[in-house]
């Protein structure tokens, strides 16, 4: 192709249109405003052609044509809405419903389910073909993701995102005919498989076949326990997306409403995870400088993405020593809540309920890691996702859109702009550079908008001049890109000094716990991700304090409690370690370069 796109003429429903050649019928129709109904199609995933809902009639072709897969050609006559094709689509969607539980009223996705929307649009008012319905037990083994094969409509989106984008390959279709089911290999429990808990399957699933492990019941119960001191923290990415759960378009920063809602739910103290993100930067930047001096392995790899940590332990066990020993901001904050903060309010740590509101499903897995418990008690008691939080707010009758905003509590509520941009891909890197520069050179970095690491390109590279050294950095988001980047780093160990990995496409803002796409957008919509990121960079720009080391509450924390970065107390409370893991199917020692 030489740049110039050929124009051709097609006829849709007897009207002529001029469109670009080289696209599918669905792509051309979308651009013209014909939204052909669809289920398995997703622009970021390979074309499956499985659901057969997007079928259209093309003159001269005996069979119906899947518009997601078939290319337009000059003179093609397409019919998207004849009586015949409407009836065929209706029957196809009914066939899906007939093998699906009839429990919309008690389902987690009642009101936000793609199948519901489709069934309504197809006008199914009577069941003609009902018969046997498949029966499978729910898989509740994982900390993060619950699998319910009875609700699965076999669109294959989860299989595709797990194999094509995340490249974990934890899921696949098994068996045949009516017995076909999506499962981990050998139908082993999810928790025993290579699943990284990233939750992207939840993001793309059109129904409730995949949902997060629900902690809202437990949280509501604990919130009404008067003997507990309830402390919340909330991730930066939540504020950028929570509005979508209440009907707002993506990109509205709503941290003040979040703080207010959390208090209305019954929390005694509401802290902000970006505070401990600043703390993470202090520790991690110091760690980077140590490694640059020769004490420790390079490239150093960030460790706040728990899904990525599980992947590294499974697939890259020989690079475990490259991982930064810093805990994630969530875990650092929880550790301090039960020590630093407990001391401050003179409370018994065992009476403190530490809750994290996260955009991330893997954080549920992280909170349960044995390394992140003290004396058998998890540092983070409960993790709820953005979806769960939004539901709790609705369930408690809090008018989220209209409550007056409130501030976070001291001493762990104030953050710099660097702490907030942790949610977007490249954010951790940018925050780290802003502080590392100053720690190393003693001077303040003035051009603190580090553009090369921003944006949704899968793998980004950059070089930062810090005084006399040039620090080579790389950023990847999505586990597939992360693995690709790591393979590059393995082959060429001197290529990078510092690598930031976020397990989810777009970074944490695209996490497995974020609100579902509404009826006007698709899951993982790129514009949505950009809008959420923009909200975070907007907050950063509006802040006076934009570098983690300048946060006075962080300075106070070190002065009063921790001593210095990488000091003894920091090591005890704020650092952790990793070890190779061999879930079924992986023999760690045999892992070859992927």
């Amino acid at each position: 192709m030489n740049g110039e796109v050929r124009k051709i003429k097609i006829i849709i429903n007897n009207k002529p249109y001029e469109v670009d050649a080289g696209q599918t019928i669905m792509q051309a129709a979308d651009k013209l405003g014909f939204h052909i109904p669809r289920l398995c199609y997703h622009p970021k995933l390979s074309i499956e052609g499985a659901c057969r809902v997007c079928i259209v009639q093309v003159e001269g072709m005996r069979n119906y044509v899947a518009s997601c897969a078939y290319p337009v050609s000059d003179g093609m006559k397409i019919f998207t809405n004849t009586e015949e094709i409407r009836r065929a689509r209706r029957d196809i969607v009914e066939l899906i419903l007939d093998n699906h539980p009839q429990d919309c009223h008690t389902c987690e996705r009642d009101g936000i389910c793609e199948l519901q929307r489709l069934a309504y649009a197809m006008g199914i008012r009577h069941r003609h073909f009902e018969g046997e319905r498949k029966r499978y037990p729910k898989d509740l083994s994982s900390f993060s993701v619950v699998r319910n094969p009875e609700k699965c409509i076999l669109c294959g989106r989860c299989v595709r995102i797990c194999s094509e984008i995340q490249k974990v390959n934890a899921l696949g279709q098994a068996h045949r005919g009516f017995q076909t089911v999506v499962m981990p290999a050998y139908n082993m429990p999810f928790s025993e498989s290579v699943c990284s808990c990233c939750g992207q399957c939840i993001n793309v699933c059109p129904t409730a076949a995949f949902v997060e492990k629900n902690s809202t019941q437990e949280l509501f119960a604990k919130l009404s326990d008067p003997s507990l001191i309830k402390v919340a923290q909330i991730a930066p990415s939540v504020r950028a997306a929570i509005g979508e759960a209440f009907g707002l378009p993506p990109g509205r920063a709503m941290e003040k409403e979040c703080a207010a809602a959390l208090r209305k739910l019954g929390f005694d103290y509401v802290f902000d995870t970006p505070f401990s993100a600043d703390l993470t930067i202090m520790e991690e930047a110091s760690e980077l400088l140590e490694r640059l001096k020769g004490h420790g392995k390079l490239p150093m790899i960030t460790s706040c993405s728990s899904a990525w940590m599980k992947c590294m332990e499974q697939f890259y066990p020989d690079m475990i020593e490259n991982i930064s020993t810093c805990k994630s901001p969530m875990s650092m904050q929880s550790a301090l809540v039960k020590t630093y903060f407990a001391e401050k309010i003179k409370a018994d740590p065992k009476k403190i309920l530490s809750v994290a509101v996260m955009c991330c499903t893997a954080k549920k897995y992280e909170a349960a890691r044995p390394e992140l418990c003290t004396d058998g008690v998890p540092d983070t008691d409960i993790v709820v996702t953005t979806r769960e939080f939004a539901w709790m707010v609705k369930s408690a009758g809090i008018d989220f859109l209209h409550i007056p905003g409130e501030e976070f509590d001291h001493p762990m509520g104030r953050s710099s702009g660097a702490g907030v941009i942790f949610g977007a891909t490249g954010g951790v890197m940018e925050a780290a550079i802003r502080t590392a520069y100053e720690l190393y050179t003693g001077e303040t970095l003035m051009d603190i908008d580090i553009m090369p690491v921003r944006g949704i390109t899968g793998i980004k590279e950059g070089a930062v001049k810090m005084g006399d050294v040039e620090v080579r950095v790389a950023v990847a988001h999505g586990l597939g890109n992360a693995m690709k980047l790591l393979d590059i780093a393995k082959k060429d160990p001197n290529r990078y000094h510092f690598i930031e990995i976020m397990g989810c496409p777009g970074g944490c803002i695209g996490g497995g716990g974020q609100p579902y796409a509404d009826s006007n957008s698709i899951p993982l919509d790129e514009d949505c991700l950009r809008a959420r990121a923009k909200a975070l960079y907007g907050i950063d720009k509006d802040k006076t304090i934009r570098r983690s080391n300048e946060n006075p509450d962080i300075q106070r924390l070190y002065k009063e409690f921790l001593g210095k970065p990488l000091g003894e107390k920091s090591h005890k409370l704020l650092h952790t370690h990793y070890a190779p893991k061999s879930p079924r199917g992986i023999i760690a020692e045999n892992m070859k370069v992927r």
Partner: protein
Amino acid sequence: MGMGEYVITICSGSNCEGRNSRALESVIAKELAKRGLADTVTVSVSGCLGMCGKGPVVIVNPQYTIYNYVTENDIPEIIEEHVCKGKPVARLAVVEDHLFNRFYRVFGDVKFFSKQMRIALRNCGIIDPENLDAYLSVRGYEALAKVLTNMAPQEVIAEVKKAGLRGRGGAGFPTGVKWELTAKAKKEDKVVICNADEGDPGAFMDRSAIEGDPHTVLEGIIIGGYAVGAKKGYVYIRAEYPLAIKRLERAIDDARKAGFLGNNIMGSDFSFDVEIKLGAGAFVCGEETALIHSIEGSRGMPRPRPPYPSEEGLFEKPTLINNVETWANIPVVILDGAEWFSSIGTPTSKGTKVFALAGKVKNTGLVEVPMGTTIREIVYDIGGGIPNGKKIKSVQTGGPSGGCLTERDLDTKIDYESLAKAGSIMGSGGMIVIDEDSCMVKMAKFFLEFTQNESCGKCTPCREGTKRMLEILTRITEGKGVEGDIEKLERLGNMIKKASLCGLGQSAPNPVLSTIKNFREEYEEHISGGKCRAGECATFLSYEITDKCVGCTSCKRVCSAKAISGEPKKKHTIDPDKCTRCGLCYSTCKFKAITKLNDRRKS
């Protein structure tokens, strides 16, 4: 094969081997040795002759006498009377009306072969399939030599196009056009595949071709590789064909040693090699894109087309994929020429087609007929007609993808278009003859059970729709059909045909829709009439003991449901509530005292 005066050939196709034909070899050798004939009489084995209903089959040349149902006890007589005294043993020989035909010199005056024209199966039953020299002696690899020395790839493609050969796997796509498209594909690295997955239940055309003449198929593949510019070929063969796999492995090995495969074939610039890939028990892997995914190591699920395999196939390379029978025709097209080949058959369907003739017909087995032969000729002239004086009801062609034709359709010519027009398909060659004792509803259910079981599960209409159709059909055969069921079957069936992703789903409703079209009364009788006219659906049957009963107690003793009661020498009775309609009492009674009713209303 030596050049002794007498040659005794034993058929070693799977069916004859199953009846222990190989054991005859040592018995024959012993008998010959006893008479001092071990050096002058040659004993050899051949591939499947096609007379599978009459095995074990032994042929004695030069009289071209075909012996059927040969056991070890018959051997001394055959050797003594025929070989020593020159008198063929009449009681064992297949002797029917003498009819001249092109293959008389090979098969003699046997009516079974009279209307056949064996092109794809030309060497089956004649040569030892495990012997390369045997293949060479019947002009084996001569076509390849001609192609490599005298023909450019485009000329080969032009010849195949001119011959009018169409894909024998069922779709009937013009083979030459497919070769041309693959050759034209821009990517350099091309691949050739032979589809030997043959999944239709009961079909064994491809199996016999590979068991009987593997080199022919290989030769075709190598020629195809040359024509499109490929260096590598794969034979995807189902693992359930161990004998065919063994013979193919041997053939590939021998071909490599002889220089017909590998680098610089026959001293030319052309290098090509073949690898065998085994299937793993999925009918859907006979579909070309599912087959390709299976070879790639993925789940055998089809994908939407375009892109077609000729542009982007195995490992994204342009791929030429053809059926075994198509490949077997290629050496003949090259050697005997496109003009001769296209003189056989009808204007749109050239050449011959191999059919696996089965069901209620006297002569079952493999037959190869020129296109244009009528179904009547196959069923009556070759098949010998319906046994036991029963009436013909239907002829089913195309396996689980095909349709059921009626007596009115018997004069339909075998031809891709004619069969489609009559309401069925050519398919890969299954042909089942059905008589009045078979229930058409049950037959449709049998095929649908198969396709629903084999559905890969990817697309909604096939995975869910065939299940719902099967549920309706099952209810109908169990006497629980309701008004509106036939219309639901038609509605679902027509949608599944047009909306499914691949050929499996697109053709799965065919048996149901064609039996509804041609035998609707049977469906209606099951639903509102309470009767199964063929007497096959158990719910509608009832057995009654008449006054002819002498009280021998035989029926009571065989009844596993303990539904029969009665004293010795007194009339017995069947309890209809306990009776499972297995029919054992009916077939056991020597006094014809039990009647079988197929109408619930009358019982």
